[in-house]
Every structure is written in structure tokens, then in C-alpha cells.
């Protein structure tokens, strides 16, 4: 069983219940590696995702330097193609998804009043598979190879061999047959296909975990329609993942088989169908868009009410609109393929289906505005990012409607107009929402307050940079800038706006720098956040900050949506909120109770096995890439032994270790209260 702040007792060796002795400590490096605590896993997800945000950002800057002037020679074609492929792959799969997973992990149990997720070790294994999958995919930088299509010639010269140019370079969408071995020679695209496969496993596992958690571990009284909107969006996203990931898994298996074993699923010369890949990819890929943006919609739905000091307007409408978006999201995939020669009727049908998505999206936007209407709006940094989200998402939504106009789409598709559009949705939407969440929950994470001035500077720089970067892309595209070209040429007449876009990209980079400085400084030297710093509305803010390992000392009972708010506030005859007379006592009592559990709390114990499973799977992945090289089979066997052995060890290891004396109990955590703790129980 895990301990809280109490250092583990001296480690009397005890017989191992499984392959290894149970990890004893929840502190230090191994404490992180072996943790099954949803909060620590969430934090690891967050930092890993942010690391990849920086990598993807560097690639974006490389892209923009290359495109700043016509016929630039800063990057070679191979380097540029790898940069845009990996920029998208990283931002989608290694930044936004895991950053959303960070929030799911950290917040979900807190928001529903639980001590952890339903399957804590499965949760850990999700993270480790994700991380090792990400390391594997990124290691193409070190080990990958790429070249000319079979029969083609590369220019002479050493710069061609740069490592960047040896990363996957067939686009994040990997259209066949260009992604097949005849046209994407070398191992780069194997790294891409197998890497995404591995990362997909991680998301699939966590989706099941979250669904079970939400359905089973809600606090007493937390009916489904009392769940915070973020929990609802997590729930919806988990189903999206559950239904869409198997599709891309199958497609990636098919492309890997085509590349490794000579099947011809997507190879027209052997009777395969390249367009089938597009259908499979977008049947996953469009729900994926909502996988990326719904978590942020959830976060924004938490932030807006808190800083408007009003409940979310039209709670049920927002929830059902989210579910409707997810549902419709499965019926619009072919709008990525209007130029692919699908039938006339299909084009018309997918066009109409795409239009319908605007309706639930509009409902959300209007309800968010309704939330602010009549409120008392406090422009703290999280609120600015949430407002930024609403404002920018409107632009992305409107340009999205113009895509559903099929004949217009024939002009727009594969141009920078699309690039502009989806960055308004994914950067202005998803990323702004994630930053809103990062600032909003910073006090919960650290117990400290971030620096408000730097936060606002970050917002305004990012808002400006984002519009400078992605705004002009709209007219660049329609005035003749196709996507994914490593050079453009003078006669396109696009010099001015390409230069502006490049400047904008660096403004975004500067804003990210401000964020990092703020984060690091505030984490160390920030003002103490105190208890409930935002005068918030939802359950998770009833906890002392930073949140104790056991979350709730006593599991809460929920009587209303916005439970915490209703405990603090009542309403006068006009419906205005009025602080309860005993507000101070309520808050003080919550804080005291939160830090002083009355009884022993059993928490899932740490385990080595989730880490080892991920570690083993990484070797299997390498094995697949190097199968044809001969030694791949040995790597696969090694990885399989590690992974399967770990599964065996895991299955005989009990979730909560009952006591060999080497491990403490969750106990009164707070340093100042520690003497109050029942010493006998600690010894027991």
C-alpha cells in the first residue's frame, strides 16, 4: 500500500508476492516510475506532452523559416517533408492527446469524488506505453532512414543525409501508396506506422479505464447529470477513442503488412485500393479532431462559470451538444476527400452531414456566451484563455462551414486555407483550452499561485502570434499556396503574407517561453495559493492544495451540480448568489478535514510492472521495423519476454499490498498535523 507524506518505515525485507519485491518508496525517481497514483501519472503525462510540444514547435519554426521567402534552401525537401510530418504527428499524438490525458488523469477522480481511477496499474501502463511509444517514434531521428522512391535519384552532397531528413516524411496522414515501401524507402515510415500503433494502445487502454471509472466510482449523489462538464467531455472522448482507435489500428496494421510482408491492401498494382486507406484514416481521423478539442471544451466549461461567477448556462444543452458532436463526428469523414473522386451523391451527403456539426458547435458557443452574460467577469489568465478559445473557435467553426460547401472545398482542400482553419480549431481551440486548464489548475498542482502579469503577457502574445500566424494562411491558401510544398515560387505573389506568418510563428514561440518562465518561477517562488483560490464551484476545489495523495480524506456526498458552490453560497429572492453566513467555517472545516483523514485509507500500491510492460513493447516495436534486417525477430522476442513476463508478474501481484511492514498507510498527511495522527495506526 502506498504511503503519503510519512516516509516509509525501515525496510524489513518480506517475501515477494510476485516476481519482484514490491517497490517500497513512493518518493524519488523510482517513486515516479512505479507510481499508480493518478495525479502523479497525470503530471508525468503533462510534462512529457509539454516536452513534445516544444519539439513540435521547433519543427513548426523550421517550417516557417523555410517558407519565409520563395525558393528557400534552408531545408532540403527531405528535411521539410519530415518536419511537417513530424510536426503534425507530434502535436496530435504526442502533445494534445497526452496533455488532455494529463487532465483526464489528474482531474477525473478529483471531480467525481474518487480516490483513484478504476484500474490504477492499467492507468500507469497507459502512460508507459505512451512514453515508450513516443520515444520509439522519435528515435527515428537517430536510427531512421529515408531515400528516393525506388528508381529515383537523390542529389549528391552531404546535407542530404541530415538526421531530420531521415524521420518519417510521408505526412501524418500517410496517404498510400506514397507511404508504401516503393515510394517511402527506408525505415522512416515504419517508425511512423508502428509508433502510432503503440501510442494507440495506450489511448485505448486509458479510454476503457476512464469509462469504467466514470460509470462506477462517482461519489454518492453524483448523478450523471451532476457531473462537471469536463467529466462529461472525458466520457465522450473515451468513447470516441474506444470506437475510432481500432479503425486506425487496423489501417496501420494493413500498411505495416504492406510494407513488411508484401501484402497489397493499398497497392493498386496488386489490386489493392489506395482510397481505402483514406477512408480508414479519416474514419478515425475525423473523430480524432473531436478527441483533440472536446477536452478543451470541457476545461473551458469549467473555467468560464468560475470566473463569471455564474453556473454554466444550459448545462444539459452543452453536455448533449458535446455528445452530438462526437456522434456526428463519425459520419463526416469523407469531407476530407471531396477531391478524391468519391461519387456525386456521397459528396453531397457528406457535405450536408458536415454542415450539421455546426449546429451543436454553435449551441456550445452560445451557451458559453450565455454563461458570461449577466456575470461578474474576472479577467484572470485562465479566463482570458477560455475567452480566447471561444473567440478563436468561432473563426475555426465558421471557416469549417465554408469547407462543407463542397464546390468551395474543391478549391480550398490541400491549400493553406485548410491549414489556417484547423489551426484555429486545434491551436485557438484545443491548445488555448489546455492553457486555460494549466493556469486554472496550477494552484491545485503546486499549492502556489502563478504570476498573473506573466500569465497575461503569455495570453496576449499567444493571441497576437496565433492570429498573425494562422489568419493570413486563409487568404494565402485561396490565393494559391498549396500545402506540404518545401518551396514556393515568386510568381505565386505571396511574399508579404508568408513573411508575416513566419513572424507570427516566432511570436508564438516567445509566448511559450513566457509560459515556461512563469511555470518554473511560480512553482518555486509563487505565492501560497491557500485554499480554494478561485472561489470555485466544483468538487475538486474542496480539497486542500496541493491535493493530498489520498485525494478525499472522507469521500464526499454530492447533492447538486456545482456542489462546492452550493455549500458556500445560497441565493436571495432575486436569484443572486449570497455567501452563506457560515462560509468561513465551512471552508475552514473542509480544509481541516481534507488534511486529516479519520481512518486509514488504502491506496493502490506502486508497481514495477506497468513500466516494464511499456519498456518491453518498445522492443517489440523496434523488432517489427527491423524484421527484414534479421535481428528484428530477436528484438521482438526480447520485448515479448519482458512485456509478457511483466503481465504475469502483474497478474499475481495484488493491487493493494497488505502489509509486510515495509510500507506505510495513507495517513494524516500534513506536516503540521502529523502529531495528531494516530501513532498506533501508523505502527499497525
Amino acid at each position, binding site marked *: 500500500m502506498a504511503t503519503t507524506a510519512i516516509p516509509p518505515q525501515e525496510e524489513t525485507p518480506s517475501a515477494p508476492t510476485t516476481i519482484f519485491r514490491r517497490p517500497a518508496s513512493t518518493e524519488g525517481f523510482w517513486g515516479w516510475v512505479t507510481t499508480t497514483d493518478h495525479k502523479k501519472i497525470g503530471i508525468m503525462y503533462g510534462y512529457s506532452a509539454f516536452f513534445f510540444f516544444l519539439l513540435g514547435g521547433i519543427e513548426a519554426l523550421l517550417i516557417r523559416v523555410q517558407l519565409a521567402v520563395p525558393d528557400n534552401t534552408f531545408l532540403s525537401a527531405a528535411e521539410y517533408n519530415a518536419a511537417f510530418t513530424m510536426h503534425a504527428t507530434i502535436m496530435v499524438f504526442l502533445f494534445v492527446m497526452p496533455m488532455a490525458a494529463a487532465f483526464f488523469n489528474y482531474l477525473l477522480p478529483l471531480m467525481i469524488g474518487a480516490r483513484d481511477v478504476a484500474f490504477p496499474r492499467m492507468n500507469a501502463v497507459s502512460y508507459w506505453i505512451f512514453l515508450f511509444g513516443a520515444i520509439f517514434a522519435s528515435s527515428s531521428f537517430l536510427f531512421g532512414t529515408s531515400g528516393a522512391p525506388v528508381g529515383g535519384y537523390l542529389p549528391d552532397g552531404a546535407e542530404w543525409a541530415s538526421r531530420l531528413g531521415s524521420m518519417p516524411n510521408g505526412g501524418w496522414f500517410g496517404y498510400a501508396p506514397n507511404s508504401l515501401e516503393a515510394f517511402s524507402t527506408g525505415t522512416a515510415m515504419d517508425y511512423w506506422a508502428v509508433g502510432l500503433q503503440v501510442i494507440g494502445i495506450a489511448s485505448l487502454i486509458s479510454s476503457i479505464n476512464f469509462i469504467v471509472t466514470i460509470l462506477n466510482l462517482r461519489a454518492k449523489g453524483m448523478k450523471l447529470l451532476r457531473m462537471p462538464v469536463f467529466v462529461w467531455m472525458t466520457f465522450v472522448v473515451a468513447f470516441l477513442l474506444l470506437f475510432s482507435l481500432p479503425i486506425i489500428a487496423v489501417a496501420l496494421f494493413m500498411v505495416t503488412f504492406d510494407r513488411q510482408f508484401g501484402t497489397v491492401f493499398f497497392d493498386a498494382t496488386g489490386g489493392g485500393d*489506395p482510397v481505402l486507406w483514406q477512408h480508414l484514416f479519416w474514419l478515425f481521423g475525423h473523430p480524432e479532431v473531436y478527441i483533440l478539442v472536446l477536452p478543451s471544451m470541457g476545461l473551458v466549461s469549467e473555467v468560464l462559470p468560475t470566473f463569471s*461567477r455564474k*453556473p454554466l448556462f444550459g448545462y444539459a444543452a452543452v453536455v448533449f451538444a458535446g455528445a452530438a458532436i462526437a456522434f456526428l463526428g463519425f459520419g463526416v469523414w469523407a469531407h476530407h476527400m471531396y477531391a478524391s473522386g468519391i461519387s456525386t451523391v456521397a459528396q453531397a451527403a457528406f457535405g450536408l452531414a458536415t454542415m450539421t456539426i455546426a*449546429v451543436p458547435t454553435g449551441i456550445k458557443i*452560445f451557451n458559453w456566451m450565455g454563461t458570461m452574460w449577466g456575470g461578474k467577469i474576472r479577467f484572470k489568465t485562465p479566463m482570458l484563455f477560455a475567452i480566447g478559445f471561444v473567440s478563436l473557435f*468561432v473563426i475555426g467553426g465558421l471557416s469549417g462551414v*465554408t469547407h462543407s460547401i463542397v464546390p468551395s472545398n474543391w478549391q480550398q482542400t490541400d491549400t493553406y486555407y485548410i491549414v489556417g482553419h484547423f489551426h484555429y480549431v486545434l491551436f485557438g481551440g484545443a491548445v488555448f483550452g489546455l492553457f486555460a486548464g494549466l493556469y486554472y489548475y496550477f494552484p491545485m498542482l503546486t499549492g502556489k499561485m502563478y504570476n498573473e502579469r506573466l500569465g497575461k503577457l503569455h495570453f496576449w502574445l499567444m493571441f497576437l502570434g496565433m492570429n498573425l500566424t494562422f489568419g493570413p494562411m486563409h487568404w494565402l491558401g485561396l490565393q494559391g499556396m498549396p500545402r506540404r510544398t518545401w518551396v514556393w515560387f515568386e510568381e505565386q505573389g505571396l511574399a508579404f503574407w508568408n513573411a508575416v506568418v513566419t513572424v507570427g510563428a516566432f511570436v508564438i514561440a516567445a509566448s511559450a517561453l513566457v509560459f515556461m518562465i512563469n511555470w518554473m518561477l511560480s512553482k518555486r517562488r509563487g505565492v501560497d495559493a491557500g485554499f480554494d483560490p478561485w472561489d470555485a464551484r466544483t468538487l475538486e476545489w474542496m480539497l486542500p492544495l496541493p491535493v493530498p495523495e489520498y485525494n478525499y480524506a472522507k469521500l464526499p456526498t454530492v447533492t447538486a451540480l456545482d456542489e462546492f458552490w452550493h455549500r458556500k453560497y445560497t441565493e436571495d429572492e432575486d436569484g443572486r448568489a449570497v455567501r452563506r453566513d457560515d462560509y468561513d467555517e465551512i471552508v475552514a472545516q473542509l480544509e481541516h478535514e481534507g488534511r486529516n483523514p479519520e481512518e486509514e485509507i488504502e491506496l493502490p500500491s506502486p508497481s514495477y510492472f506497468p513500466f516494464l510492460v511499456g519498456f518491453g513493447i518498445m522492443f517489440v516495436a523496434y523488432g517489427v521495423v527491423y524484421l527484414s534486417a534479421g535481428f528484428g525477430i530477436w528484438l521482438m522476442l526480447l520485448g515479448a519476454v519482458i512485456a509478457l513476463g511483466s503481465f504475469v508478474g502483474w497478474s499475481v501481484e495484488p493491487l493493494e499490498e497488505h502489509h509486510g511492514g515495509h510500507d506505510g498507510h495513507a495517513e494524516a498527511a500534513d506536516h503540521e498535523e502529523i502529531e495528531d495522527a494516530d501513532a498506533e495506526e501508523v505502527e499497525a
Partner: protein
Amino acid sequence: MLRGPRLKLILLGAIALVLSSCSLGVQDGVLDSFDAQGPIAADLAWLFWLVFWIAAAVFVLVQGGLAFTLFRFRSKNDDDGVEPKQTEGNPVLEVVWTVIPVVILAAIAVPTVERVFRYTECAPDSMNVDVIGHQWWFEYYYPDHDVWTANELVIPAGQEICLTMTSDDVIHNFWAPKLNGKRYLIPGEDTTLLLETYDLDEGAESEEFWVHCAEFCGLSHARMRARVIAVSDDGFDQWIAGQKEPSVAASGGLEGDGLQLFADKGCNACHLIRGVNDDSGGNEVLIGPELTHFASRNAFAGGTLELANAGDLAKWLSDPPTWKPGSFMPNLDLTETEIEALEAYLRSLK
């Protein structure tokens, strides 16, 4: 933070940005889809602008409403203890902002669907040209005349042309933005695309429109362009007649050396010059563009270089993979004299 004057400043800045974008943005680019030069592209642009202005109106209303809300309901005193009314929703409003978008969308759906049906299939009597995509150039075949050419698609102006397209390798995408939207070229499959230009201006012999491959098709995707050349009906007949001729015989001297090099350097293994290497199997077998009337075209190397530019052909011949990485034409290590001879011969192939 967002106090009155500052808010106004931001709004003014935003308006200025949008206005300047409208004026600065129009730069007469060769791929500008707004600069429609045919009835189809003009109709697509019309539909785009219709939806654009509706979207712009929604944009102004929503962003204006948002800005007003933020300004009107900003907290003037965080600590006065006066809290807002805890409104939880309004069913009537929910219905209103569900129905209004539905009505707007239904309205724009009508012209959308109508045009989808109008522009996806060719009229049976329209002239057909086959387009074959290659890494990284477009090849054309005129089935009615048995004529092969590359890069420059010559069509009669003012009539509907039906392109039947496929690909020899990966997926490409034919985009002549001033004439129509895009359509993929897919290996193992035929797709169709309509092209139609306006009639030629009085006295003009031809008009040129740029094409760019718009689907990522591997290393040199950026260097896959083409041209559409619209000519008069008479001009088209003359052009066809000229293309059907075998190649002009080399006149000795430099041109003769060039012809010799065409065989010696193995160019004839990939390129057809009718009258020179007719025994090579023809365009169905050879992987390079037919060169019989190479000099009747201006754009070459995937439409990225021009005969009209003095140094372009020598640059291409001296090192194709540097200009087009992955190119199937190798660097043949030609000497300057060899390049000169080949250029002289190629330029003679009118």
C-alpha cells in the same frame, strides 16, 4: 485588463488588419483562385463569397456579442460581495440558437448540392483528354487524335474539356485554380475533372493558366506544376496537326551531336522522340515525357522551368536530382559541350 480604451484599440487594430489584408492580399498570383478565368471557377468563387459574407455577418454578430458581453459584465469590484444572478439556462434561447443556424445552413445547402451535381460529371459531348500523374510531372494523351504530350495541356478556349485522370505511381492532385477546383489522380482508378476557360481576348493567340499538384506526392511534390494553354479552335487544330508530325530531323553540327548524345547517354531509354527511337515501345512503356515536339512547349521539368529562360534547360540537364530530389532522371555528368549540344537539339524539336 480589457478596459474601454484598450478594447477599442484592439478592435480598431483588428479592423485595420482585416482591411489591410484585403488590399495587400490581392497580388495577382499565378495560382490565385479568386482570379477566376473560366465559368466554373467563377461560379465556385461566387458560391464561396456568398458563404463568406454570411459567415462574416455571423462573425461580426458573435464576436461583437462576445466583446459587448465582456465589456458590459466585467467585474468592476471583485470584493463588493454583490454576486450575479445564478441563471442556469433558458430553453427558449436554446431553441432559437439551434433553429437559426439550421435555417442558415439549409439555405446555403441548396446552391451547394446543386453545384456538386453540376460539376462532378462531364457532358457526353465534351472533348476528352487523359491525364496521367507521374512523380513529378503531368502527362496528357488526346485519345481522339492519338497525341501524347507533357506539362503543358493545350485545350481549345471557351469549351468544356473533360479530363479523365489516373496516376502511374502515387496520388497526385490536378489544380488549375483559375479554371476549377482540385481532383485526385489515383493509381488504378479514373477520376474526372472539368475545365473551361473564357473565350480568348480579341487578338490573343493563347492564354496560359498555371497548375500545381496539390496532393503531397513525395519528395519533390513542390516541383510538380504544369500549365493549361488555351488556344482558339483553329489554333488547337493546327497544334494537333503539328504534334502528329514526326520530329524534325537534326540538321547536323551541334544538333547532330545532340541527337547522337540522346542515344549515347541513354536518354532514349526513357524518352520517346518519334522518328528517332520508335522501336522503344512508346509512351506506354517509357517513363519519361515524350520529347518529339519538346520545343513546342515552354514549361518543362514538371512545369517548373521554362525554355524562355535562357539558363533553365542547361541547369536541368546538368543535375536533375538537385532541382527535383528523387527524380527518375539521373545526373548524367554531362560536360558543358554535351549540354550545349543536347540543348541545341532539344530546342530544335519544334
